[in-house]
């Protein structure tokens, strides 16, 4: 039937425009132009003594220009600026592989962009770790020339890993891809914002990587003041790089929490919300509280450096920075592991085909970890305080193991007497549970002031937090990648290789970080490129294990990429999972579901065969 629809003729663009350059490349060129223009402008209006072309203030303002150029170049100009001034957006996303190289508003594309960016950052920060371990193979300096070089490597490694991998891979990556699918939504609420948010991540990572161009900095990932105020100019790119990366996380948090609140399918009550979605919701709230806090701290620190303000040196209050940093810094570690906790309880019931044990308590655990996480920060400052102040923080820190235990116990309870299918994802989750217990138990020791004062800033601490972060989050991230691979690609990985590689990284990981506990107890300090020679044999061995581990991560990446493209075709729902993402085709179509999703019961019961949701193609079929 002929339909007449009143439609205004597009006015502004009589000729179709053609973009002959990939948006990422255009972004880089515009970023360069933006930097140069803003930098020269700054130098022109506020010339520095001796007129150098790049000074600390001009590098900061130039960076703003560079960032604007980058965001406009990747598609922000057509998709954000033109509509802002009333013209129609001219941005049309390509439907093929090209869509991954520019601004996208599709949550699945954005999710994959995030996964790719954060895997690349993982690779770079990992190579950086290898350089550090190479240096530590000998007791004296032999690879890095200056201590500042080593410390910059440590700082870049830590910052990239925390702000570009830990906070990003599972939340912005897997979260963007799967949250809408798991709640039966067709799209996210703020899809444009989310699309631009991704491009802040590579911008921030590149800023951090470029920081040595302005000088080595030696504060590690915490940017400690007043130490930082003694550092050369590279410090400003630390602040700016993290600013961009955390901003990306904030945009993800806004978008994902709004999507979870407003875009749930019919029947998707709070009581039925999947575990992973709960994980993303709690973590997004954490992000919304704490990322702005640390951003403001860093903005203050940046101004302190450029002006300077003396917030935190002898004229101000040197310990305030410690508190401001750790007020965020401790929640940050929960931001990293909460999605992993949630994912354990997503994968285990499916693999065991068994009801999730104490589902409500698993969620209450997530919520209480979220609430308590802001109360423990001073356990990082035991060396800076009076004995009487230590007790409350030791107490709260040990308290937090209780809600953590809820998530853990839900997993253990589900495993109890289960006939678990030992696939690669379940194997990796079991390994992750084991590693996290080691990290958690040593964490309890570190929360005891007498132990803490003994091993503070030694490799014992390094071992502890790598156990929680790599052991807890990275292992689970890889498990999730295998678990969802058939959904991403419609293809299956090779089970033998998957398991072999899982065992590989398990051995590599425990060989590396298990020995670091002993190193720490033996007196190996952190943040030093040279150490007493009696520690050499163990350090040498740790480095060998570390190289083995690094190769294992790369092998996993290669295997997953291979399976994504060439793996054998996977069945529609290979794990017999009941959550909604399996209700649609693999990979999912543009709008996720061709019909309306209607949820009728929860997803974690395997004691009956009733479906948990229906796909309603026609409104009259509705139940």
């Amino acid at each position, binding site marked *: 039937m002929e339909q007449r629809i009143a439609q205004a003729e597009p006015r502004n663009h009589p000729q*179709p425009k053609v973009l002959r350059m990939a948006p990422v490349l255009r972004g880089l060129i515009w970023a360069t132009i933006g930097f140069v223009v803003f930098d020269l402008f700054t130098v022109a209006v506020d010339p520095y003594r001796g*007129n150098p072309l790049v000074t600390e203030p001009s590098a900061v303002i130039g960076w703003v220009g560079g960032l604007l150029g980058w965001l406009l170049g990747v598609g922000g100009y057509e998709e954000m600026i033109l509509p802002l001034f009333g013209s129609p957006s001219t*941005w049309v996303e390509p439907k093929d592989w*090209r869509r991954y*190289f520019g601004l996208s508003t599709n949550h699945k594309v954005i999710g994959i962009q995030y996964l790719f960016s954060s895997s690349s950052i993982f690779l770079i920060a990992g190579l950086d770790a290898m350089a550090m371990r190479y240096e530590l193979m000998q007791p004296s300096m032999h690879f890095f020339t200056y*201590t500042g070089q080593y410390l910059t490597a440590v700082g870049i490694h830590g910052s990239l890993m925390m702000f570009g991998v830990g906070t990003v891979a599972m939340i912005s990556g897997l979260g963007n891809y799967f949250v809408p699918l798991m709640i039966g939504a067709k799209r996210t609420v703020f899809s444009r914002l989310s699309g631009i948010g991704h491009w802040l991540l590579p911008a921030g990572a590149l800023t951090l990587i470029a920081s*040595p161009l302005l000088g080595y900095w030696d504060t590690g990932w915490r940017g400690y003041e007043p130490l930082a105020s003694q550092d050369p100019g590279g410090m400003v790119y630390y602040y700016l790089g993290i600013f961009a990366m955390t901003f990306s996380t904030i945009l993800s948090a806004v978008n994902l929490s709004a999507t979870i609140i407003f875009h749930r399918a019919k029947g998707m009550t709070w009581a039925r919300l999947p575990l992973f979605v709960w994980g993303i919701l709690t973590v997004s709230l954490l992000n919304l509280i704490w990322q702005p806090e640390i951003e403001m701290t860093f903005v203050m620190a940046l101004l302190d450096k450029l002006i300077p303000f003396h917030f935190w040196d002898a004229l101000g209050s040197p310990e305030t920075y410690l508190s401001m940093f750790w007020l965020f810094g401790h929640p940050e570690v929960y931001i990293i592991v909460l999605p992993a906790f949630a994912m354990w309880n997503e994968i285990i019931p499916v693999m065991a085909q068994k009801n999730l044990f104490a589902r409500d308590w698993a969620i209450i655990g997530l919520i209480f970890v979220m609430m308590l996480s802001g109360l423990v920060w001073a356990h990082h400052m035991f060396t800076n305080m009076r004995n009487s102040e230590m007790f409350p923080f030791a107490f709260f820190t040990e308290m937090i193991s209780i809600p953590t235990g809820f998530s853990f116990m839900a997993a253990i309870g589900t495993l109890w007497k289960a006939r678990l299918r030992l696939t690669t994802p379940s194997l990796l989750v079991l390994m992750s549970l084991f590693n996290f217990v080691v990290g958690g138990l040593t964490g309890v020791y570190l929360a005891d002031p007498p132990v803490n004062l003994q091993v503070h800033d030694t490799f014992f601490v390094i071992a502890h937090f790598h156990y929680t972060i790599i052991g807890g989050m990275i292992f689970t991230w890889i498990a999730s990648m295998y678990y969802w691979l058939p959904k991403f690609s419609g293809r299956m990985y090779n089970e033998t290789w998957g398991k072999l590689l899982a065992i590989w990284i398990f051995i590599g990981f425990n060989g590396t970080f298990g020995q670091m506990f002993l190193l720490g107890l033996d007196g190996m300090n952190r943040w030093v490129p*040279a150490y007493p020679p009696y520690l050499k044999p163990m350090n040498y061995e740790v480095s060998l294990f570390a190289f083995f581990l690094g190769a294992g991560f790369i092998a996993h990446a290669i295997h997953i990429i291979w399976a994504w493209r060439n793996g054998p075709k996977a069945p529609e729902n290979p794990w017999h999972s009941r959550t909604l993402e399996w209700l649609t085709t693999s990979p999912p179509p543009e709008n996720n579901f061709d019909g309306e999703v209607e949820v009728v019961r929860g997803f974690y019961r395997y004691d009956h065969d009733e479906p948990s949701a229906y796909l309603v193609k026609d409104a009259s079929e509705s139940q």
Partner: protein
Amino acid sequence: MDVENHEPTGILQQQWNRRQVIWGGVGVTAAALISLFAKPDIVSLARNLVGSPVSSGKINLYQFDYYYIPNYMTWRVGDKLEVTLQNQSHTHWHEWTIGRKLNMDYFQGFGYMDADAWAIDFWDGVDVTLSDPYKIDNFVPNKAHVTYVGPKGPYQITTGGDFSPTLQPGGSLKLTFTVPNKPGLWHFGCFVQEFIHYRDGMQGLINILPA
């Protein structure tokens, strides 16, 4: 109903190919790695290509955290120079030494670090006049022949180490001298705080041309 799929005219069509992305990416990565790891080489290459003008008369030398502006100068033997040294840092003490042969070979975590001075001090036997002192922390004349103009009070003349005026934050000092017959490349740097300033980049180069 074709309305939804109807593509309006005047849209942005993307026409670019895989090769462009790959070569663009490779090029950008290469450029980034070069600028990250080969910065000094690029600078000296540019300097060789463009050259650098010979300074004469009055020179301003600024000290920042942790660099000098300029960090490269060309002088000519026999020229009369007046260098105004100014510490622009808000917080840090900085010095100025010129010399050759820095011994860095012995750096070991628990060994000794024989690297707080030059083996050859440029100012050895040079006639130099110091004037307009302001906020001077200390001054080591070493083997230079020094004339002091103006108040002697601000100087805390000490011994040990190379010829080195050390300025407090905001301090300044004028050094007047004739470039001695010591052609070739000379390094300058600040060794305050156990060498850390030097290692953090507080160094520079002087190319002295024969007369």
